[in-house]
């Protein structure tokens, strides 16, 4: 059975090409994936991300629970509305999922987790929540639209009720607030995203999602498919669950060291394993690759190094750069020249720091 978001018929009306995406029937593109990519880099585009799962957590000990559940520290969230990116680990330090957590009240936090991992995430969260007496409530009544690009915020703000505009305009990065949208629609507006551009992720009651989508389109926001979302996030140096990390990979090995908080006295799930791996030496590292030759780096291709083989994780043609880039996991000791085996041809690639693109432009050295 394939799930459909409330915007499914709207995508089809727009002529989207639909694909199965982790059990969801989702638009990959409405025409040209490359044009959609450029629309987000240069102006504003929107994505239906209603397949992602919103989970509300309520309880007197909800903060304690999240201190235990997440590798990043919710203690960084001091102001209501602030958000944090974190991994949720198993006891071995492997990544169960990556998520965003919003601080909405002393007894109320909201998680947004990946679509494909929904079932295992919910089972894990519920299992861990029992000891803290935290109520775990999935919110299938919400749809979610990501509006991204240099002009995204202005276009969204133009649709808000006048009394909300100034407040939402001042909303800081990685923060969220409630606002009233077109026709009085109650919105949860978060200044987060997955494209490397500024913008909002908007949670909206399902029954009003189509109206919001159409109002955004009328305001000049281009509908974009998940194809463009993938090339945008790769250029922006952001991990994709299932491709760049999974339960067999620790955050040390997935370029997510910045999300691990080894704050004193906090016993989060997976901490012991992470500390042990760090002490023993992390065997693998995730790096950025650029290919100057023609061709496309793809998931699963072998990376040849002077210290054994690695593999391409996310790899694609990068429309902003007009060449191919990739993430790869390689032996930590590897250095020097790297090559990728593309259908039997060994092609040289350059090791680079990512992100590959920032503020719509190639980063230095890419």
């Amino acid at each position: 059975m394939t799930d459909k978001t409330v915007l499914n018929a709207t995508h089809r009306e727009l002529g989207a090409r639909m694909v199965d995406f982790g059990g969801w029937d989702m638009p990959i593109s409405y025409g040209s994936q490359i044009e959609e990519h450029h629309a987000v880099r240069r102006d504003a585009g929107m994505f239906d991300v209603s397949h992602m799962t919103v989970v509300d957590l309520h309880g007197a000990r909800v903060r304690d629970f999240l201190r235990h559940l997440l590798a990043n520290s919710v203690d960084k969230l001091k102001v209501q509305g602030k958000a944090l990116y974190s991994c949720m680990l198993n006891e071995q330090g492997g990544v169960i999922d990556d998520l965003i957590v919003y601080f909405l009240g002393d007894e109320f936090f909201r998680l947004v987790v990946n679509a494909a991992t929904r079932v295992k995430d919910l089972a894990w969260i519920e299992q861990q929540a029992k000891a803290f007496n935290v109520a775990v409530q999935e919110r299938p009544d919400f749809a979610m639209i990501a509006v991204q690009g240099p002009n995204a915020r202005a276009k969204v703000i133009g649709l808000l009720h006048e009394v909300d505009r100034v407040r939402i305009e001042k909303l800081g990065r990685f923060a969220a607030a409630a606002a009233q949208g077109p026709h009085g629609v109650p919105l949860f507006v978060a200044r987060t995203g997955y494209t490397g551009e500024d913008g909002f992720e908007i949670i909206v009651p399902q029954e009003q999602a189509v109206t919001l989508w159409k109002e955004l389109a009328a305001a000049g926001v281009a509908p974009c498919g998940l194809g463009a979302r993938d090339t945008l996030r790769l250029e922006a140096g952001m991990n994709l669950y299932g491709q760049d990390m999974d339960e067999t990979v620790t955050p040390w090995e997935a370029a997510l060291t910045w999300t691990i908080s080894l704050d004193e006295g906090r016993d989060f799930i997976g901490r012991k394993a992470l500390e042990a791996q760090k002490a023993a030496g992390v065997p693998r590292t995730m790096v950025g690759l650029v290919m100057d030759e023609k061709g496309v780096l793809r998931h699963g291709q072998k990376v040849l190094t002077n210290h054994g083989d690695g593999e391409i994780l996310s790899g694609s043609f990068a429309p902003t750069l007009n060449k191919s880039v990739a993430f790869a996991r390689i032996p930590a000791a590897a250095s020097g020249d790297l090559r990728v085996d593309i259908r039997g041809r060994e092609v040289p690639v350059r090791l680079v720091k990512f992100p590959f693109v920032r503020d719509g432009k190639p980063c230095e050295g890419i």
Partner: protein
Amino acid sequence: MSEIPGDLKFLKSHEWARVEDNGLIRVGISDHAQEQLGDLVYVELPEVGASVKTGVGAATVESVKAASDIYSPVSGEVVEVNEILSDKPETINEDAYGEGWLFVVKASDRAELDELLSADDYAELIEHEDD
């Protein structure tokens, strides 16, 4: 969907073949195939002089999403390749049955042409594929 030229023959895997006046076989991918693949960003063509066989990958086209093997509709020797594609792979998206051709084969066994689908049969095939 653009109209399918009646002089073409097709493989089920969406390659087309056109028998030219000089007897050589020009090969490309169908408009339907380019539409399914999306924006093409790289084409790996065979070398001129290479021999190709039916059922064996002769070229690769890569869209943003994926790489796809291209089969030659007939066996034989590659006598010409479309150099334009190395700089402008999107030519296939723009004109799959014309400027976006891939390579030209001198067939070693012309009877293989009889195995191919007619334009009408191919049209029917992709119609059902969309069901």
